């Protein structure tokens, strides 16, 4: 987990959690502006790991998977592939996986083109810890698609938690976050608020209110994060259910 910031990081000077909505990017289609292209790049930088995991699960070795991931994103950005306004690309992750499959099937042609002197752009990613992350997945029984979806769900959660943690740290409430984050997945019946009062120097009532606020903020951030990757806010609940199902793989 020590590398989660690395994994989510983007190029220096750019905000870690720039809000970029896939719906806006995809709606641009052929007429995508430089700003929209930049927005797509931001999304790609946030969600590259599931593609890397997919490639590894398909049998590509570490270096091939790294190269292909970066080349694929370069291809996406270069080719203006957003012209595909097909409804089945409503979700960013569906779009990426479908395009990646096309991209892979086209690899032989690409390799030939490269020999003839053609080359492709790549999107440089902070990819150095990818294999460490991949190794953490007990992935033997998963299909590449299942691993892709599971990794996607984990990335969504990681980004949400990182954002929540950052917000709390900025408010100088890092210790509060560290102590209370467990209540995002459990409740006072399992871990009584009383257990936290000494560590936090707060009354039980104050802990209760703080937990309530943390949960509310978490939910908001999670929904915002997912909203960035789907075709509209009306798809957030459905996507959340899909991601929940993927985590059970």
């Amino acid at each position, binding site marked *: *987990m020590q590398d989660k910031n690395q994994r989510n990081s983007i190029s220096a000077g750019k905000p870690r959690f720039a809000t970029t909505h896939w719906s806006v990017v995809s709606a641009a289609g052929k007429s995508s502006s430089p700003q929209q292209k930049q927005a797509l790049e931001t999304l790609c930088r946030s969600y590259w790991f599931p593609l890397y995991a997919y490639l590894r699960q398909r049998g590509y070795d570490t270096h091939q998977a790294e190269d292909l991931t970066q080349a694929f994103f370069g291809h996406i950005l270069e080719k203006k592939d957003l012209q595909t306004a097909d409804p089945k690309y409503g979700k960013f992750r569906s779009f990426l996986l479908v395009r990646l499959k096309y991209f892979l099937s086209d690899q032989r042609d690409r390799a030939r083109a490269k020999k003839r002197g053609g080359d492709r752009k790549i999107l440089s990613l902070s990819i150095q810890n990818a294999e460490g992350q991949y190794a953490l997945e007990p992935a033997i029984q998963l299909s590449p698609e299942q691993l892709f979806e599971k990794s996607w*769900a984990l990335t969504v*959660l990681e980004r949400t938690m990182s954002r929540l943690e950052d917000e709390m740290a900025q408010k100088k409430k890092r210790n509060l976050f560290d102590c209370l*984050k467990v209540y995002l997945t*459990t*409740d*006072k019946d399992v871990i009584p608020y009383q257990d936290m009062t000494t560590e936090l120097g707060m009354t039980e009532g104050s802990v209760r209110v703080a937990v309530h606020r943390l949960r509310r903020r978490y939910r908001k951030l999670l929904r915002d994060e997912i909203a960035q990757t789907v075709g509209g806010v009306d798809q957030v*609940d459905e996507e959340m259910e899909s991601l929940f199902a993927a985590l059970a793989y």
Partner: protein
Amino acid sequence: MAEKMKCPKCGADLPANAPSGLCPQCLMKAGMNNSGKDKKAGPSELSSADTTSATPPGGFEPLEPKELAEKFPQLEIIELLGHGGMGAVYKARQKQLDRLVALKILPPEVGQNPAFAERFMREARSLAKLNHPEIVTVYDFGHTEDGLYYFLMEFVDGTDLRRIIQAGEITSDQALAIVPKICEALHYAHKKGIVHRDIKPENILLDAEGNVKIADFGLARLLDKPTSAYTLTQSGQRMGTPHYMAPEQVEHPKKVDHRADIYSLGVVFYEMLTGELPIGRFAPPSKKVHVDVRLDEIVLHTLEKEPELRYQHANEIKTDVETVAGKDQGANVSHKRQARYHPSTSAEAC
């Protein structure tokens, strides 16, 4: 490898890449709670939780029996039996009839959707028409003046299949007795066009005489919560998983037919026989426990990934199970298919 940490909520092993060290499934589920269309932050997060108590991850804060009693003067509310994302269930007594009943209160937020009232009346009417000894009977339904939707149902004095499986108290003979009963109930409901959509051990109740009763028919559809993420039992709240859902239900939750129930039944059947879920590259039951090898084909046929390849009707499973369970030792289990199971193809069944 470091020693495995467990989620304090659901008890699952925490994966090494758990976000912030928290259980990913519980974390996602926490985001799903009272999701509704929760653009309204703050007070919409359930009024009772606002200042005095935080909303538990499992859903809303159920009313105390005393508070509920004011809304249902015809009932004596005895105790809260359980609560979760699909509401809360209370044990109650109908004063005039002196009859024990189960009162299910749906999550309060459902009433905030103006379209729900009509859907509720329509669906509840068809659920109330289900009249089968293996299906929990709906006596009444409606809503209170302040908009709490409820079902008044048969009270099942017993336990649920989850508890029996967990206690390791179920034998293969019992499983072979229970499954045909479930099949009868499913077949009956399916003929009426009603799909359960959430068959799992928590929804299969057994009374003191060993009778099987299926609970929560159609509730997943009514509440538009098509996954097993929300579980409500009469015995308490529990974290569900989507393991019982048919693959097509995961992919297209709104487009399932009765064959999704058949798949879910297959998962329950497998779990009853082996104590485990059929996840990944799972072994046929007879390879894990000492059971009739003919059961392998039945179980695996219910777990076919493609609905077209599964049993098409629940009564076919009943017939095949009874063939194995009966004296007819020489009979072959069913018909058209032979040794369809291939581990490599079943590996993605979940």
